[in-house]
């Protein structure tokens, strides 16, 4: 497997130079890679994190949150599929915002993406360190330093991303498939269909311990079941057939996650009381241990590690594409808009984000890092329905060719907007200070962009889609 172009040591020759001049990112990905990118980023949320929803409102609250978040993300997937299959360029939602709303919105959306994915990458690296520390503790070695494993996970995945997108996402595909299969195997192995089952739903299920307010509070963590599926859009410039692969990979991804989330909830609440499950660090691994099978415990331990690595891998891929796209448009220094002539990756953006991820992974607490990731993601979801309404208004269905047209417009957009509103309230209940701090940060950087940075942007050159004039202009 190679996704490099021929390259020889020494000074670049004439043929090489010509290749480089025409050299953007490499179009080598298929629908399976898109599925792996989307599901790979998210699946770690099934292995850990979602269960804090149980702690907030009980088992049924977590299920309600799971399905409400499922509706929210189905809307996200449909809206994203339509716009990205039409605006097929690196940067994903950033590029969509640039073409459909305007530069200031695009700058903000680009930053949401980079923050959401870089913070999530840092959180995943912290988790890798925690997992290795746990395994060492189980083998009788206390006091392991997790830092070398945190640094190694970031450096290895950055190196992989640096070397080429095909190898990177094929790696994601393999480890994501194993992690997803582990959930299916756990469900089947504990299911009453195949003999005696350890599941004890009748004894463990309770009513809503905190009533409907608990359900509302659980919504914040319900996002973890699906957070990051929208990252499929970042590969738009590297898929062979954007109009086919992006909608297929994204929609298949959200369906996979809905299945995995429901199975995860079913198995975990049948094995653990909600008071314990709501505080567990690695609920699926704990469920496998409680099933009494050593092989299941090993499998789910491997699944946890693979899901974490797949998520960090996808995050590096997506954050670097968003940063690269902003550099290419001069929204950031154009130095970041460089593509590696041999590996055809946005190598400077990948390198630039490594120390940032390391600083947060080594110096910030996990819950704060994840909260900033979720808040940036939520701001991005709020942009999507507005984006879709403007897209349909400015370029109606009969004006440009779309790879996918989502049904029932504007119901998904309005549903998404309403669910975002509910989730903001839920987040405000638990993390109001962080929410206000995050919004203040984006206001400050918006002022910087408007009054300083935008003067460096080649204003006409940034609109690249060969579309007709928008309706009404």
């Amino acid at each position, binding site marked *: 497997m190679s996704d490099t172009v021929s390259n020889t040591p020494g000074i670049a020759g004439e043929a090489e130079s010509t290749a480089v001049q025409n050299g953007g990112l490499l179009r080598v990905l298929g629908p399976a890679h898109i599925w792996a990118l989307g599901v790979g980023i998210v699946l770690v949320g099934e292995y850990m994190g979602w269960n804090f929803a149980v702690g907030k409102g009980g088992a049924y609250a977590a299920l309600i949150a799971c399905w409400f978040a499922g509706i929210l993300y189905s809307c996200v997937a449909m809206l994203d599929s339509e716009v990205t299959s039409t605006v097929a360029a*690196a940067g994903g939602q950033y590029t969509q915002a640039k073409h459909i709303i305007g530069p200031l919105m695009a700058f903000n959306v680009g930053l949401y993406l980079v923050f959401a994915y870089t913070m999530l990458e840092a959180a995943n690296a912290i988790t890798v360190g925690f997992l290795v520390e746990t395994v060492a503790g189980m083998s009788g070695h206390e006091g392991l330093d997790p830092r070398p494993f945190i640094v190694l996970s970031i450096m290895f995945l950055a190196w992989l991303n640096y070397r080429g997108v095909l190898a990177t996402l094929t790696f994601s595909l393999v480890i994501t498939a194993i992690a997803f299969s582990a959930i299916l195997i756990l469900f089947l192995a504990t299911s009453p269909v195949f003999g005696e089952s350890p599941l004890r739903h009748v004894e463990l299920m309770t009513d809503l311990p905190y009533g409907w307010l608990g359900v509302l509070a659980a919504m914040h963590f319900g996002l973890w079941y699906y957070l990051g599926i929208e990252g499929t859009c970042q590969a738009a410039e590297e898929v062979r057939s954007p109009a086919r692969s992006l909608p297929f990979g994204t929609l298949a991804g959200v369906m996979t996650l809905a299945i995995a989330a429901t199975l995860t909830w079913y198995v975990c609440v049948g094995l653990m009381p909600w008071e314990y499950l709501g505080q567990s660090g690695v609920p699926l691994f704990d469920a496998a241990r409680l099933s009494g099978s050593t092989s299941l415990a090993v499998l789910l331990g491997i699944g946890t590690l693979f899901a974490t690595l797949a998520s960090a891998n996808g995050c590096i891929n997506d954050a670097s594409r968003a940063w690269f796209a902003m550099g290419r448009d001069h929204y950031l220094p154009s130095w970041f808009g460089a593509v590696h002539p041999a590996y055809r990756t946005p190598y400077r953006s990948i390198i630039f984000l*490594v120390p940032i991820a390391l600083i947060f992974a080594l110096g910030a607490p996990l819950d704060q890092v994840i909260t900033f990731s979720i808040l940036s993601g939520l701001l991005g979801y709020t942009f999507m329905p507005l984006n879709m309404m403007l897209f349909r208004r400015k370029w109606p269905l009969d004006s440009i060719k779309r790879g996918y047209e989502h049904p029932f417009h504007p119901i998904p957009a309005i549903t998404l907007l309403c669910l975002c509103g509910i989730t903001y309230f839920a987040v405000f209940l638990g993390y109001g200070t962080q929410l206000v701090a995050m919004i203040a940060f984006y206001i400050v950087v918006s002022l910087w962009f408007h009054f300083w940075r935008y003067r460096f942007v080649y204003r006409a050159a940034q609109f690249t889609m*060969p579309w007709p004039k928008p309706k009404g202009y």
Partner: protein
Amino acid sequence: MLIWNLAEYVAWALSAVLGIHIVIDWLRTDSRYSEEQLTSSHEGQIEAMTEQHEL
């Protein structure tokens, strides 16, 4: 245990090797190609050639 202490050193060493490899390749690439060549990627190049965006 010795194996875990060793694993820590191996992880630090591998991280350093990968980091150095990336930095060396980055510096070599930047010195071999002009900035114009490296930043010649344009958004929408292929779409402009293969899709007309017309019904």
